[in-house]
C-alpha cells in the first residue's frame, strides 16, 4: 500500500469539504475498512488522504418505530443482523446481513461500507490488469474467466455487485440519505445503484464529494413474509454465487404483491419485475413458482463459465416463492 495521511472526521461539513474537488481516489472515506484496506494493499486505490468516518458521532445508531427503521451508515453489519426488531419484522434484512462474510468482519464492517464496497471481480482486483472498470479498454471477463460474473445487465462491464444487504433493502423499499457540499438528499436504494451502461466506472450515483449517512426502511405490511436465500460454494466467508431477496405479501397461498431482488448475478442489485409479475395475484403452486424462476432468467446472457448461475437463479427464485406459500 502507498503512504497516505489520515484524518479523523469531526463533522459532515468537514468531511464533504475535504472531499470537495478532489475527484475520485485522491481523498477517500474509510469506515470499517474491511473492503478498502484490501484495495489499498493491492494498489487498486492509492489515495493521498483517508478520512475516518468512525469518529462521526451518532451515525451508528439503529432506531425503529411503527412506521419503519432508521439505520445510520456506521451501524455495523452485525448490529443489523442481531437487532431484534429487524429479526422479527424485516427478516430478509436480518438474514442478508447475517450471511455477510464472517462474524469478525460483520463486527467491523458498516452498512455504508457494505453498500459502497467495490466489486470483487478478480480482474478488477488485480493490480496489473487495466480493465474497463478501472479506465482501461476491456472487460476481461468477456473472453476470460467468468465463473463469478454477471448473467444479467452486464454490458459493458460484467462485475457482479457484491453486497448482500443491498438487495434486501431494495426488496423492502428502503431509501437512503446522502450528504454532500450542497446539503442532504434522499433517494430510493434502488435508484442509488447504477448499471455499467450508465457508468462503467462506478456502481452507484454517489459523487466523489458525497457520502451515505443513513438508510430508512418502511415497515413491511403485516401480511408480508420475507427471505434471503444465498447460494455459495462454502459456508463462510463467501460472496453469493446468486441470491434472492424476496418480500411476499400473502393472503393464504395467494401472493398479493411480490418484491424480488437478485444479488450476485448483475452489476447492480437486480429487481426481477418478471418474477414479480409471474407471482402477483397468483396462488403459489410449484408450477407458478417455477414459472417465476423461468421468467426471471429469460433474458440472461451468460458468459463462457457462468451458465450455471442461470439455473441457480431460477431455482432460488422458485424456492423462495415456495417458502412464501408454506
Amino acid at each position, binding site marked *: 500500500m502507498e503512504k497516505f495521511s489520515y484524518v479523523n472526521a469531526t463533522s459532515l461539513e468537514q468531511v464533504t469539504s475535504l472531499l470537495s474537488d478532489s475527484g475520485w481516489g485522491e481523498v477517500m472515506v474509510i469506515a470499517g475498512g474491511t473492503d478498502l484496506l484490501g484495495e489499498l494493499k493491492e494498489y487498486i486505490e492509492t489515495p493521498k488522504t483517508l478520512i475516518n468516518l468512525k469518529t462521526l458521532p451518532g451515525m451508528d445508531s439503529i432506531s425503529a418505530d411503527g412506521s419503519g427503521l432508521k439505520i445510520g451508515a456506521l451501524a455495523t453489519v452485525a448490529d443489523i443482523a442481531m437487532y431484534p426488531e429487524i429479526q422479527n419484522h424485516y427478516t430478509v434484512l436480518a438474514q442478508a446481513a447475517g450471511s455477510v462474510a464472517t462474524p469478525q468482519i460483520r463486527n467491523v464492517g458498516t452498512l455504508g461500507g457494505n453498500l459502497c464496497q467495490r466489486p*470483487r471481480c478478480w480482474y478488477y482486483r488485480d493490480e496489473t490488469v487495466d480493465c474497463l472498470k478501472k479506465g482501461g479498454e476491456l472487460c476481461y471477463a468477456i473472453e476470460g*474467466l467468468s465463473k463469478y460474473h454477471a448473467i444479467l445487465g452486464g454490458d459493458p462491464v460484467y462485475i457482479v455487485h457484491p453486497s448482500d444487504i443491498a438487495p434486501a433493502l431494495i426488496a423492502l423499499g428502503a431509501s437512503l440519505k446522502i450528504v454532500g457540499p450542497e446539503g442532504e438528499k434522499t433517494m430510493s436504494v434502488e435508484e442509488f445503484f447504477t448499471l455499467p451502461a450508465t457508468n462503467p466506472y462506478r456502481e452507484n450515483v454517489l459523487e466523489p464529494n458525497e457520502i451515505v449517512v443513513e438508510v430508512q426502511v418502511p415497515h413491511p405490511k403485516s401480511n408480508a413474509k420475507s427471505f434471503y436465500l444465498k447460494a455459495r*460454494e*462454502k459456508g463462510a*466467508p463467501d460472496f453469493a454465487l446468486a441470491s434472492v431477496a424476496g418480500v411476499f405479501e400473502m393472503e393464504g397461498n395467494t401472493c398479493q404483491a411480490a418484491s424480488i431482488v437478485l444479488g450476485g448475478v448483475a452489476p447492480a442489485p437486480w429487481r426481477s419485475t418478471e418474477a414479480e409479475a409471474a407471482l402477483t395475484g397468483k396462488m403459489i403452486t410449484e408450477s407458478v413458482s417455477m414459472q417465476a424462476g423461468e421468467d426471471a432468467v429469460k433474458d440472461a446472457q451468460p458468459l463462457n463459465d457462468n451458465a450455471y448461475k442461470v439455473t441457480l437463479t431460477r431455482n432460488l427464485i422458485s424456492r423462495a416463492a415456495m417458502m412464501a406459500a408454506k
Partner: protein
Amino acid sequence: MSEKKEYKVIGTRPIRHDGVDKVTGRALYGADFQIAGLLHGRVLRSPHAHARIVSIDTSRAEAYPGVKGIVTAQDLPDPADKVADLGEGAVNLKYLCDNILARDKVLYKGHAVAAVAATSPHIAEEACTLIDVAYEVLPPVLEVRQAMEPDAPLLHENLKTTSLGETADEPSNVASHLQYKKGAPEKGFAEADVVIEREFVTGTVHQGYIEPHNATALYNPDGHLTIWCSTQGAFTVREQVAEILQYPISKIKVVPMEIGGGFGGKISVYIKPVAALLAMKTGKPVKVLMNRTDVFEGTGPTPASYIRVKMGATKAGKVTAAEAYLAFEAGAYPGSPVGPGAMCIFAPYNIENVLIDGYDVVVNKPKTAPYRAPGATNAAFGSETILDELAERLEIDPLEIRLMNGAKEGDRRADGPIYPRIGYIETVEAAKQHPHYAAPNGKKHHGRGVASGFWFNIGLESSVTINVNVDGTINLVEGSTDIGGTRASIAMQAAEVLGIPAESVNPSVVDTNSVGYTAVTGGSRTTYATGYAAYEAAQDVKRQMIARAAKLWEVDEANVQFADGEFSCINGKEEQISFRDLCARLGETGGPVVGSGTVNPGGAGGAFATHVVDVEVDEETGKVEILRYTATQDAGKAIHPSYVEGQIQGGVVQGIGWALNEEYIYDAEGTMTNASFLDYRMPTCLDLPMIDTVIVEVPNPGHPYGVRGVGEVPIIPPPAAIANAIYDAVGIRMTELPMSPERLLKAIGTI
C-alpha cells in the same frame, strides 16, 4: 486378539507440552522474531508465467532512501548442473537455485526475480516497484496434457525425457516416465467379466497452512550464518541453504521457530536463502515474510493431474487386472509426486496383474511440493471411484469388494515390496461394523460413499538426547519440528521406558547445532522415527541408571532390575530405589546422566484407511453437504490417541476441501486469479460435520511400540468417497476435482 501389552503412559491423553504456550499466544513463530538492527526484505516476483529475463536494472531501487541491499540470481553462486541429495531424494541443483531467484527465465507467475533489504517493510515493498526488469514474454503452457504435446512451448531447452532408464534425444516437457508392472495385465483383463475405464482430472491444490513462510538471517563477520525460520526440518534447511549458497554446513545454524502448519509445504526452501544472501550483502540481520499471495504464487502446491484408470473383475468380485496412466504436473521444474502416486494407487488390493505408467511433466506453474501423502490422493480418486463402479455393476457391497480383494501380509505390491503385517482388512471391517454403515440412508438426494487409501510412510534418521534432572524429571532434546503434537508423542515413548509420567518430560525442539541430525517432520515419520530415537535414548538412560544403582548397592549390574519406575536388586539384597530417588543421587554415583539415541529405521509400517461419508446433494444449487463422516485407520499403536484423531480429522477436512472447493484457477496467461483465502475456498467448521474416527491398532513390527505413521493417509480417501456418495445420491459419476456447484449443476444437466 493376541496378548495386549499393558502400558502406563502410551495410549493415555496427557496435555501437550506446548499447549499452554500455543493457546495463550505466547509461542514464538518466525514472524515474531526480533533482533537489534533488523532490516526487512521483500521479494520482487515475476508478473509473467513464462518469459526470458532480458535485463534487470536495480539502480533506481538502490538509490531509494532506506534501501540497504538488493540481490538477484547474479548473487548466487553459478550452480553447476549437478545432482544434490538433500534427504528427500535427489535434486538437480540448478533447478533448486533457479527456483530461489530466476536466472535466465521466469517459469511461473510469482517466480522470485530479485529481493530488497530496507529499513522498513514498506520501503522494501516500494523499492521493489523501482526495479526495472525487461522480459521477453513467451507463451505459457499450463496444463499437463498440453505440455506433453510435441509442439508445446518448452520450459527447459535441455530437459529430455528419461523413460525407464533411457534418455531421449529431443527436449521435452516430460521429465520422466516410470512404470510398474506385475503379472500379465492383458491376460487379467481377458479373465474379467466387467471392465471399467475412465479418465479423471484433478486441480492444483495448496496445503493452505495458516502461517506464511518467514525467515530471518544473521551473518556474522566470522562467517557464521544463523537462520530463524518456520520449517518442517531445520536440518533440511541447513542442507539446502548450504548447497544453494555453496557454503559449509558447519557455518550454518538453523533455529526452528514454532510452525503454523506445513503439510509438506515447508520442506523446500524459498525465502530462507534469500534472507541469507541479503544478510551477507548488508551485514545486518534481515527478515523476509511472505504474504498470502506470495504463498499461493511463490511456493509449491500439490500437482494438478490427468489420470486414466482401468480395472476388471470377475462376476464373483475378484479384481483380475488394473491399469493406470498418471500424468502429473511437476510445476516449473521436474519432481512431481507421480512416483508415490504410482506406488499407492492399487496398494490396498492384492491384484495379480497390474500396469502403472507415470509421467512427470513440467508446466508454467510453481514447482510443486509435497502435500500430505503426495500423489496418492490424486491417484486414489481414480482407482477408488472405478472400484466403486465395479462393485455397483456386480451388485456387491463396496466394502465387501474391498474385503474380497484386500491386501494382507505376504502380498506383493506392484512396485515390488512384500507386505509385512498390515491392517488394511481391519480398517474395512471397522468401517463395516460402525453404526454409521448400518444407519439408514434412503432419503432423496442423500448418498453414501466409501473409499480406502494407502500411504507407505517413511523412516529416516533421527536423534534424541535426554538429560536427567536431579528431581526425577528429564529434559528431552530433539530436532523434529512439532506440527501436530509430536512433543507429546515422543516424550511419552521416553516416559514409558523410564516409568515416569509424561509430565515429567520437558521436550525441546532445538537448533541444528544442538542436537544430532534429524530428518524432516514429513512422511508421517516423526512419532515413528524420532519416537524410536527417544525410546533408544531412554533405554540408554535406563542402562546408565542401572549402573548407578549397582554402584550404590555395590552389586553387579546384572543383579539390578528395573520395572515400573523402581530399581531393585535381585540377588538376595533387599535394595530398592525409585527412578526419582536415584536421580537425586547421580552426583555421588559419578555425575550427571545423559542418554542418547539415534536411528535410521527401515520398518516404517504402511498405513491404511477406510472412510464412509454421507452427503446431501442440492440438485437446485449444486451444493454438496457433508452430513456424516467416519474414518477408520490403522495407527499401529496410538501413542496419544487425541493426536491420532486430530491427524485423521485434519486430513479428512483437507480432503473434503480438495474434493469440493479448492483449486488454483488460472487464466490463459498463467495468472492464478484466486490467490487469496477469500477466493481459494478452504472449508471452515460451517462446512463440516463432526468427523468420527476409529483407531485400529495392528502393531507395526518395525517399531518397539508398534507405531505406524498416521499423518498422511487420512487425506487420501475423501475425494473418492465423496464422489462415490454423490453418485449414490444423484446417479452421476464426477470425474473432475473439485466437485464445485458449477460442475455439479453442469453434470446434473439442468443448464
